[in-house]
Structures are given as C-alpha cells and as structure tokens.
C-alpha cells in the first residue's frame, strides 16, 4: 500500500473509537484551532473516589493523523487514573499507532495536549490547581518541546532549533535556527505563537528566524 500511514492509523481513521461528546462531562478541553487545520476536543467522566477515567470521548477536526491520534489516546487513557493518564506521552500515542510520518508528529502532540488540558480542566473544577505560574524562559522552553520540527518529527528543543529566548515585560521573543524562507518557517512560527500567546501574562510573541 503506497500511503504513508500504517494500517493501524488507517483503521483508526476509518473507524475512530470513542467519538462524540459527553453532555454532562466532568471535564472537557479543546486544543488547536481551525486556523491551523487541527483541533481536538476531549471529554472526560471521572470517578471521584478512584480518580479513574470512566469514560472518555473525543471530537476531531483535522487530517487522518489527527483523527487517528485522537482515537488512540482515548483507548490509552480509558480506565486509567488521572495520575497515570497524565504520564501518557505523544511518543506512546505515536507508537501505539505503529508510528507516524515526521511531518505529522505534531498531530499526536495535539491529541496528548488535548488529554492533558481535559485533565487540567478537571483539576481546575475541583479546585486542585495552584496559583498561576509566571512565564519564564524555562517555561517557554518547556512549551517549545510541544512544537515539532516537521522535517524530522522531533521537537524544536530536542533538535536544537532554538537559538534564543527572551522574556521581558509581557513580550516573548524566540529566535529559531532556520532561514526565514525555509519551507516550514511560517508554520513553525504560527505553532510557536499558538503555544505561548494564550499564557496569562504574555502580550506579544515575536518569532525571529536566523538567516543561515
């Protein structure tokens, strides 16, 4: 079969598991945006005593990888405690699907982010969240680990693509080690902005490219 996707991905694409919304969900989230062509909504029903995910459903707007990863994380998370579900990584999701092409790993990151955000939503509702963390270089670096380099399918920090990060007076400046005219420069820039802009103490995100 000439397609770049594994049989497992295709199967989850054709017949995604646990699709839908839970009307009286204990927690929900929506990650991604129509603008970037990728969205995942996750709904949870949690047993308060055992902290287990009794039911989990997802909705998805996006490509085959997006739908497949949404589906697989519901399978991975169902029945787990919130604590264990928090530990599920995007690599696990990707592996469970038999691997994803590098250019698509951001989809599995998004699905995991969706799951994490839903769990956080549950904790927020139950008053379990501490006060808001300030945005620091360290935090930005952590967030940048969720931005993928589509060429190799690994994150920007791991592939040493971040030259500089500056956080000052609500303005975050990130310098990426890519020429501005690189094929993926615009999409990486957009992804970075999406990950940092929503932060409560950030007014502006400036992404610069180091011309090689």
């Amino acid at each position, binding site marked *: 079969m000439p397609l770049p996707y594994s049989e497992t991905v295709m199967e989850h694409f054709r017949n995604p598991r646990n699709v839908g919304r839970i009307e009286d969900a204990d927690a929900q989230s929506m990650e991604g945006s*129509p*603008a970037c062509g990728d969205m995942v909504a996750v709904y949870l029903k949690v047993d308060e005593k055992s902290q287990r995910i009794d039911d989990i459903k997802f909705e*998805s*707007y*996006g490509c085959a990888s997006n739908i497949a990863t949404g589906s697989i994380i519901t399978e991975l998370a169902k029945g787990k405690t919130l604590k264990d579900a928090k530990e599920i990584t995007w690599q696990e999701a990707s592996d469970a699907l038999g691997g994803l092409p590098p250019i698509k790993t951001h989809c599995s990151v998004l699905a995991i982010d969706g799951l994490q955000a839903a769990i956080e939503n549950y904790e927020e509702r139950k008053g379990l969240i501490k006060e808001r963390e300030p945005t620091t270089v360290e935090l930005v670096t952590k967030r940048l680990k969720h931005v993928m380099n589509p060429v190799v399918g690994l994150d920007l920090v791991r592939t040493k693509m971040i030259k500089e990060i500056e956080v000052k007076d609500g303005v975050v400046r990130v310098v990426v080690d890519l020429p501005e005219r690189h094929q*993926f420069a615009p999409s990486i820039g957009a992804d970075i902005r999406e990950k940092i802009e929503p932060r409560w103490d950030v007014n502006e995100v400036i992404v610069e490219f180091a011309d090689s």
Partner: protein
Amino acid sequence: MFAETIYLDNAAATRLDERVLEAMRPYFFDTFAVATSQFGYSPGIEAKDALDMARAKIATHLGAAPEEFVFTSGSTESSNLALKGVALALGEKKGKHIITSGIEDFAVLNSARTLEKQGFRVTYLDVDEQGRIDLDVLSDAIESETILVSIQAANQEIGTLQDLAAIGALCREKGTVLHADATHSFPRVPLDVGEIPVDLVSLTAHLVHGPKGVGGLYVRKGTPLAKWMDGGFQEFNLRPGEENIPGAVGFAKALELVTPEETARLQGMRDALIERLLQIPESRLNGHPVFRLPHNANISFRFVEGESILLHLDMRGFAVSTGSACFSRSLEASHVILGIGGDHERAHGSVRLTVGRYNKDEDVDAVVEALEQVIARLREISPLGKIETKR
C-alpha cells in the same frame, strides 16, 4: 490503477492521450537525431523540420509567428524565464519595479520573491472575493519604473479567469511589458495574441493530455528578454539545451486534440459538480461563478478538513485535491483562498475537482454521492458546527 480510480485532479496532471504518444513515437526511434541546421546531415535536418513544424502549429494556436515561440521544460521554467529575463534585460535600464498578483502560482510568486532579494521592488496586488484583479488598482500601481506586470490568465486553484484583454490594453497604454501565466487556461480558454496585447505567455503540455516536461514561452517580437540559462544557442538564443523534439511534437498534437466541443462537455460536468455540491449544507464556491476555467470546481465545506476528505475519497477510488495546509508541501494553507479573503478554515475545508477528457457524467454522479457521505461522516466526528456546550 488508473482504470480503478475516478481521476478528478486534471489541474495537477492529466493522462496522456494515446494519439499523442503515437505522434511522438517516431521521434524516439526513427527521427531521433539532434535538430541540426540545414548544413547538417539529413536525419538532423529531418529532426529540425519536425521541431519547426511543431513550433509552427503551436504558434498558430496562439495567433503568433513561429519565431515568437520558445520551447522550455515546462511552464515553471517559462515563468522563470519571463520574470527573470525581463528583470535582467531592463533592471539596469528602465527600473526595478514589478507588479504581480497575490494569487499567482509558485513559479511566478517565488520568482518575484527571488527578484525582491536581488533588489527589485514587487507589488503583489490584492484580488477581490472572487479572485479578480481590479483594473483601477493595477493602473495606480504602474509607475515609470515598472518594467513588468505578471498576471495569470487563470488561477490554478479557484479557476478564476482574469480580463487579459483589459489588462493588456492598460499595460500597452502605460508602456510596460505584460506576462501572463496561461498554464491552466491554454488552450481550453483560447488566447489570441493578435487580439490580446500580451508580451509573454507561459504554456504547458501536461495539463491537456500531453507529455510532462515540456512547455513553452510566447515572446512577442521586440520584447526585452535576457537569456537566463547558459549553454548553446538553441531557441533563438533564448533557451539553450538540446531540443526535446518528441516533447515538442507531443505538445503540438495535444493542442490539436482539444476541441471546443470537448471543452463544452467538460464545462457541463463542471457546472453539474458545482450545482450539486453546493446543495450540501454549509458549502461555498471558491472563485468566480462565471469567469471561470471550464473544467474547475472548487468548493469549501465547513467544519471538516481537506486531507481527511481526500483520504476518504481515495479509499473510495477518487482522486481530488485540497487547499488544506496538511496537503501542501509547506504545511501552509492555500495562499489563494487566503488571498480572496477566506480564512484558514475555508482553505482547510476546500476541495478542488478538475475534469478532463477521460471523465464521464457518471463520474460526477459518483463523486457527488461520495462527497455527501464523506462530509456527513467527518462532520459527525468534528467538534465544530455543533451547538456550543459550556466549557
């Protein structure tokens, strides 16, 4: 493989017509010599005759003289030659300002961007919601330093046709060279350079059931154009390289086989596609409803994403295209949909269907039915378009 697929991506590539192959065959096996001058050996002269004949036929389709037609490896090369050739010829003499549209295909757009890096100023004109250039805006943009206006004859994604006659008249009046990328329009949308004052036209063979890897550039006599590639002196010393005679012959044959009747048949299928697909709720047409390529339908469907649509259709045996970011090589949404004022969502949900010689009415029925089902299925799993529940 092809027999099983209902192929609706004729704007990307077309199936070669057997008659084109038959016309080309002798030039691979019998008359395979290089095209020599009249002082060469006879097989070479024969080859040159074949090349000249192909050239003359193609020029006739354009209403041009044979010596105004240059063979290239395709319209991408033609557009590069047009933009960079004019820039090279006039950059030091007349000025460094170039005007083009924001929805051009990449050969023109990226050639312009490269010229910007080399010190040229480029104005990328906006288009209206249906993809048309505003003539007043164009007129205002032309200055004394403007050396080239490059506006496509038709758009590669949304199919909108530009008013080349009016644009040409304007450029003639203002004394600036006009290039038109006719990759997607010619010859189904006829172009007569005797009537339309255009100076350079990019053409290709591969979208009308001709061979890949051959195209051409029409160069009106007297147009300032510098040689861009170095080598021998072929193609009136404008484009070196051993001539692709089988390709040239195939190109000429392919043009010959396109008839107004066939184009009318394709237009009928296009109209049926558009009418029926717009009956799917939350859908809209991209591009002009009337000034439109006869074989292009481009529709956006809300709440669903293009690559998924494409894959579902592929599983059912259809080949179509999409403006979604996931599908592009740069992960960027279609600059054309964005250029007509569409948002990213509209780009991601866009599907382009383009019919060709080998499509039949049943193909229209089949793909409409399939799309209805696919869109419905994807909307079931989409978080969008449903009543918002509280966060």
